[in-house]
Protein backbone atom coordinates (compact mmCIF):
# COMPACT_ATOMS: atom_id res chain seq x y z
CA UNK A 1 0.00 0.00 0.00
CA UNK A 2 2.96 2.28 0.27
CA UNK A 3 3.19 2.99 -3.43
CA UNK A 4 -0.50 3.06 -4.07
CA UNK A 5 -1.52 6.43 -5.34
CA UNK A 6 -4.86 7.10 -6.87
CA UNK A 7 -5.17 10.78 -6.24
CA UNK A 8 -6.29 12.89 -9.17
CA UNK A 9 -2.90 14.63 -9.24
CA UNK A 10 -1.34 11.51 -10.66
CA UNK A 11 -3.89 11.18 -13.43
CA UNK A 12 -2.73 12.37 -16.75
CA UNK A 13 -4.78 12.70 -19.85
CA UNK A 14 -2.70 11.99 -22.88
CA UNK A 15 -5.32 13.49 -25.16
CA UNK A 16 -3.86 16.93 -24.41
CA UNK A 17 -0.88 16.00 -26.55
CA UNK A 18 -2.94 15.86 -29.73
CA UNK A 19 -3.24 19.65 -29.66
CA UNK A 20 0.52 19.88 -30.21
CA UNK A 21 0.08 18.52 -33.71
CA UNK A 22 -1.99 21.00 -35.74
CA UNK A 23 -4.56 18.85 -37.46
CA UNK A 24 -7.76 19.53 -39.25
CA UNK A 25 -10.23 17.72 -41.38
CA UNK A 26 -8.98 18.57 -44.87
CA UNK A 27 -12.04 17.26 -46.66
CA UNK A 28 -14.33 19.64 -44.77
CA UNK A 29 -11.96 22.55 -45.36
CA UNK A 30 -12.07 21.86 -49.08
CA UNK A 31 -15.86 21.71 -48.98
CA UNK A 32 -15.97 25.04 -47.16
CA UNK A 33 -13.69 26.65 -49.76
CA UNK A 34 -15.94 25.35 -52.52
CA UNK A 35 -18.96 26.92 -50.83
CA UNK A 36 -17.15 30.28 -50.71
CA UNK A 37 -16.25 29.97 -54.38
CA UNK A 38 -19.82 29.22 -55.43
CA UNK A 39 -21.21 32.10 -53.39
CA UNK A 40 -18.71 34.60 -54.80
CA UNK A 41 -19.22 33.48 -58.40
CA UNK A 42 -23.00 33.72 -58.18
CA UNK A 43 -22.86 37.15 -56.58
CA UNK A 44 -20.35 38.37 -59.19
CA UNK A 45 -22.84 37.46 -61.90
CA UNK A 46 -25.73 39.13 -60.09
CA UNK A 47 -23.57 42.22 -59.45
CA UNK A 48 -22.70 42.34 -63.14
CA UNK A 49 -26.34 42.30 -64.16
CA UNK A 50 -27.17 45.06 -61.68
CA UNK A 51 -24.23 47.20 -62.84
CA UNK A 52 -25.41 46.82 -66.42
CA UNK A 53 -28.97 47.78 -65.61
CA UNK A 54 -27.87 50.82 -63.62
CA UNK A 55 -25.82 52.00 -66.57
CA UNK A 56 -22.40 52.11 -64.94
CA UNK A 57 -19.53 52.78 -67.30
CA UNK A 58 -15.83 52.87 -66.56
CA UNK A 59 -14.40 52.84 -63.06
CA UNK A 60 -17.78 53.09 -61.36
CA UNK A 61 -18.58 49.54 -62.36
CA UNK A 62 -15.35 48.16 -60.88
CA UNK A 63 -15.94 50.05 -57.67
CA UNK A 64 -19.38 48.48 -57.59
CA UNK A 65 -17.77 45.05 -58.03
CA UNK A 66 -15.45 45.59 -55.06
CA UNK A 67 -18.40 46.79 -53.04
CA UNK A 68 -20.36 43.63 -53.81
CA UNK A 69 -17.34 41.46 -52.96
CA UNK A 70 -16.84 43.29 -49.66
CA UNK A 71 -20.48 42.72 -48.72
CA UNK A 72 -20.04 39.06 -49.69
CA UNK A 73 -17.05 38.78 -47.37
CA UNK A 74 -19.07 40.20 -44.51
CA UNK A 75 -21.89 37.80 -45.31
CA UNK A 76 -19.55 34.81 -45.36
CA UNK A 77 -18.00 35.76 -42.05
CA UNK A 78 -21.51 36.07 -40.62
CA UNK A 79 -22.40 32.67 -42.03
CA UNK A 80 -19.40 31.19 -40.24
CA UNK A 81 -20.74 32.71 -37.04
CA UNK A 82 -17.83 35.15 -36.63
CA UNK A 83 -15.74 32.31 -35.18
CA UNK A 84 -13.94 31.08 -38.23
CA UNK A 85 -11.46 29.04 -36.21
CA UNK A 86 -13.68 26.00 -36.40
CA UNK A 87 -14.25 26.25 -40.14
CA UNK A 88 -11.10 27.70 -41.70
CA UNK A 89 -7.41 28.02 -41.13
CA UNK A 90 -7.04 31.74 -41.42
CA UNK A 91 -9.01 34.92 -41.97
CA UNK A 92 -7.46 35.41 -45.39
CA UNK A 93 -9.14 32.31 -46.67
CA UNK A 94 -12.56 33.75 -45.99
CA UNK A 95 -12.04 37.40 -46.81
CA UNK A 96 -9.51 37.50 -49.62
CA UNK A 97 -9.71 34.19 -51.37
CA UNK A 98 -11.62 34.36 -54.60
CA UNK A 99 -11.85 38.12 -54.47
CA UNK A 100 -10.74 38.48 -58.06
CA UNK A 101 -11.94 35.19 -59.46
CA UNK A 102 -15.39 36.58 -60.14
CA UNK A 103 -14.08 39.66 -61.94
CA UNK A 104 -14.26 38.11 -65.40
CA UNK A 105 -17.80 36.86 -64.88
CA UNK A 106 -18.75 40.26 -63.53
CA UNK A 107 -17.45 42.08 -66.62
CA UNK A 108 -19.10 39.56 -68.93
CA UNK A 109 -22.55 39.96 -67.43
CA UNK A 110 -22.05 43.69 -66.97
CA UNK A 111 -21.49 44.23 -70.69
CA UNK A 112 -24.23 41.74 -71.50
CA UNK A 113 -26.85 43.49 -69.37
CA UNK A 114 -25.68 46.93 -70.51
CA UNK A 115 -26.12 45.91 -74.13
CA UNK A 116 -29.52 44.41 -73.54
CA UNK A 117 -30.90 47.37 -71.61
CA UNK A 118 -29.20 50.44 -73.04
CA UNK A 119 -28.08 49.70 -76.54
CA UNK A 120 -30.17 47.03 -78.16
Amino acid sequence: MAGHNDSSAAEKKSSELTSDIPTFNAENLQSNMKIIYYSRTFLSIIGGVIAGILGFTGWTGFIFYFLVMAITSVGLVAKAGFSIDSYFNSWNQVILDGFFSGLMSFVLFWTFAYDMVHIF
Partner: protein
Amino acid sequence: MGMGFVVGVFGAVILAHAAYSTIQYRALLKIVEEEFSRPPINVVVELLLGLVFCMWAALTVPGKFLSILPHSEQNRIVSLPANLDFMIFNHRGKVFPLEMDLKLKH
Protein backbone atom coordinates in the same frame (compact mmCIF):
# COMPACT_ATOMS: atom_id res chain seq x y z
CA MET B 1 -32.13 24.18 -49.69
CA GLY B 2 -35.42 24.40 -51.55
CA MET B 3 -36.38 27.61 -49.79
CA GLY B 4 -33.10 29.30 -50.61
CA PHE B 5 -33.42 28.25 -54.21
CA VAL B 6 -36.91 29.80 -54.45
CA VAL B 7 -35.61 33.02 -52.92
CA GLY B 8 -32.78 33.12 -55.46
CA VAL B 9 -35.12 32.58 -58.39
CA PHE B 10 -37.42 35.27 -57.00
CA GLY B 11 -34.48 37.68 -56.80
CA ALA B 12 -33.56 36.93 -60.40
CA VAL B 13 -37.17 37.54 -61.48
CA ILE B 14 -37.12 40.90 -59.70
CA LEU B 15 -33.92 41.80 -61.56
CA ALA B 16 -35.46 40.82 -64.89
CA HIS B 17 -38.48 42.98 -64.12
CA ALA B 18 -36.20 45.89 -63.25
CA ALA B 19 -34.34 45.42 -66.55
CA TYR B 20 -37.61 45.47 -68.47
CA SER B 21 -38.71 48.62 -66.65
CA THR B 22 -35.41 50.30 -67.53
CA ILE B 23 -35.79 49.37 -71.19
CA GLN B 24 -39.23 50.95 -71.26
CA TYR B 25 -37.90 53.99 -69.42
CA ARG B 26 -35.23 54.46 -72.06
CA ALA B 27 -37.84 54.18 -74.83
CA LEU B 28 -39.78 56.89 -73.06
CA LEU B 29 -36.66 59.06 -72.84
CA LYS B 30 -36.08 58.60 -76.56
CA ILE B 31 -39.54 59.94 -77.26
CA VAL B 32 -39.05 62.91 -74.94
CA GLU B 33 -35.45 63.27 -76.23
CA GLU B 34 -33.74 63.55 -72.87
CA GLU B 35 -30.43 62.13 -71.66
CA PHE B 36 -30.27 58.96 -69.63
CA SER B 37 -28.54 59.52 -66.31
CA ARG B 38 -29.94 56.86 -64.02
CA PRO B 39 -33.02 54.66 -63.82
CA PRO B 40 -36.04 55.91 -61.86
CA ILE B 41 -36.12 55.49 -58.11
CA ASN B 42 -38.51 52.58 -58.05
CA VAL B 43 -36.21 50.63 -60.37
CA VAL B 44 -33.25 51.35 -58.08
CA VAL B 45 -35.26 50.12 -55.10
CA GLU B 46 -36.20 47.02 -57.07
CA LEU B 47 -32.55 46.37 -57.90
CA LEU B 48 -31.54 46.69 -54.27
CA LEU B 49 -34.30 44.29 -53.26
CA GLY B 50 -33.21 41.80 -55.91
CA LEU B 51 -29.62 42.12 -54.71
CA VAL B 52 -30.64 41.40 -51.12
CA PHE B 53 -32.64 38.33 -52.13
CA CYS B 54 -29.85 36.98 -54.34
CA MET B 55 -27.29 37.59 -51.64
CA TRP B 56 -29.37 35.67 -49.14
CA ALA B 57 -29.74 32.82 -51.63
CA ALA B 58 -26.01 32.83 -52.44
CA LEU B 59 -25.15 32.42 -48.77
CA THR B 60 -27.64 29.68 -47.95
CA VAL B 61 -27.99 27.52 -51.07
CA PRO B 62 -24.42 26.14 -51.50
CA GLY B 63 -24.56 24.41 -48.13
CA LYS B 64 -23.51 24.70 -44.54
CA PHE B 65 -19.98 25.11 -43.31
CA LEU B 66 -18.55 21.95 -41.84
CA SER B 67 -16.25 22.03 -38.85
CA ILE B 68 -12.60 21.25 -39.45
CA LEU B 69 -11.58 20.61 -35.84
CA PRO B 70 -10.64 17.00 -35.24
CA HIS B 71 -12.45 16.72 -31.95
CA SER B 72 -15.75 18.38 -32.78
CA GLU B 73 -19.02 16.54 -32.63
CA GLN B 74 -19.41 16.22 -36.40
CA ASN B 75 -16.00 14.74 -37.13
CA ARG B 76 -15.00 11.32 -36.01
CA ILE B 77 -11.51 10.32 -36.95
CA VAL B 78 -12.32 6.76 -36.08
CA SER B 79 -15.27 5.44 -38.00
CA LEU B 80 -15.90 2.04 -39.45
CA PRO B 81 -15.79 2.01 -43.22
CA ALA B 82 -18.77 0.67 -45.04
CA ASN B 83 -16.88 -2.29 -46.47
CA LEU B 84 -15.33 -4.29 -43.66
CA ASP B 85 -13.08 -6.25 -46.01
CA PHE B 86 -10.81 -3.31 -46.78
CA MET B 87 -10.11 -1.74 -43.41
CA ILE B 88 -6.71 -0.10 -43.16
CA PHE B 89 -4.90 0.26 -39.89
CA ASN B 90 -1.46 1.33 -41.03
CA HIS B 91 -2.28 4.99 -41.59
CA ARG B 92 -1.07 8.32 -40.25
CA GLY B 93 -3.37 8.13 -37.26
CA LYS B 94 -0.61 6.30 -35.45
CA VAL B 95 1.09 9.68 -34.93
CA PHE B 96 -1.53 10.55 -32.36
CA PRO B 97 -0.81 9.24 -28.90
CA LEU B 98 -3.34 6.84 -27.49
CA GLU B 99 -6.24 8.56 -25.85
CA MET B 100 -6.27 6.80 -22.56
CA ASP B 101 -6.32 7.96 -19.02
CA LEU B 102 -2.91 7.08 -17.70
CA LYS B 103 -2.96 6.40 -14.04
CA LEU B 104 0.02 5.68 -11.95
CA LYS B 105 -0.21 2.17 -10.66
CA HIS B 106 1.61 0.85 -7.68
